[in-house]
């Protein structure tokens, strides 16, 4: 990000307006979503059963996967590396679009907000006693 602080490029009035419209759109979605969330149970009713810090070994798995695959990815021929990077870009564009569409459809759908009250990670419960 440090290298990306561009000072020479300046957006025109249309560019500014477009970004302000995006801000307004996001603001509207947040407000509308908050309004719809008011029908949900208050967090105090759900937060009285802390299950503790669980599964820290996920961090070590993540670090190991990152180390191993960083070496593997950079050792691959440029063509495969290019396809992997393109695939990742595609995943991000499609994933982002899907997440936005699903959330927006859920917001404007009639009926209550889905609430997932199932307990988290029973088997990973941290034993404090």
């Amino acid at each position, binding site marked *: 990000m*440090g290298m990306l602080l*561009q000072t020479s490029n300046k*957006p025109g009035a249309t560019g500014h307006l477009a970004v302000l419209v995006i801000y307004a759109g996001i603001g509207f979605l947040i407000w509308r*979503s908050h309004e719809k969330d008011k029908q949900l149970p208050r967090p105090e009713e*759900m937060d009285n059963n802390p299950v503790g810090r669980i599964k820290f070994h996920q961090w070590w*798995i993540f670090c190991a*996967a990152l180390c191993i695959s960083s070496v593997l990815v950079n050792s691959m021929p440029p063509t495969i590396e290019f396809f992997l990077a393109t695939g990742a870009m595609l995943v991000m564009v499609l994933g982002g679009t899907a997440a936005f569409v699903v959330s927006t459809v859920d917001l404007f759908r009639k009926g209550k907000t889905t609430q997932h009250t199932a307990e988290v990670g029973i088997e990973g419960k941290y034993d404090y006693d």
Partner: protein
Amino acid sequence: MITAKLPSVFQKILFWLRLGFLSTFFAEVLSGSAPYFLLEGFGYVGIIPIYLLHTLVLAGLALRKGQPFSLRTLYFISLLFGMYEAYITKVLWFPPWQPDAFRIAGVAVFETILLVLFWHAIFSFLIPLITAEQWMTSSNRVLRLFPFKWQRRLQSPIAPILLGVFGSIMLGSDIDSSLTALQIVLLNCTVMSVILLYWRWMTRKMVFAFK
């Protein structure tokens, strides 16, 4: 015997700093944009504060005391994170890696989708928020918002493996050699591990909730 206890202001500040480090790590290191942010002065005066403040303000907006919220609201709030790429970095108007990007009203469309709807929403905000809560507190407010099958998937060993592989592909697209990539990953993982382990050691006799 471990008792529930309210964190002190000092502990809260330390927690917030760690949240900022996690956000910067997932967003800037895995994207390859600022892999050495820990070694650069600008990392401490520019990059980390931007991520830290965004995460704190947006998480504060979502996790307001006593206010119910859904995963949908959290996602919409996370969209504001990526908007810093407009007025601070100007990337939404002028993506440096794609000068002839497809634009509508001066805004690069695919880069905006990629950065606002996915990268900063997921990697800069949601993943750091989930990991910070899971690894550093005793509550489950964020993970509990997901459907139950997703909660199980996110807690399985497959999730961090997929995250690591995906991150290495993103990092690899900006790094030339495997040795450099390994150096970057080892440096950042070691520092982040020390930061997280120290927090867990410091709070080993306390029970904190994410509120």
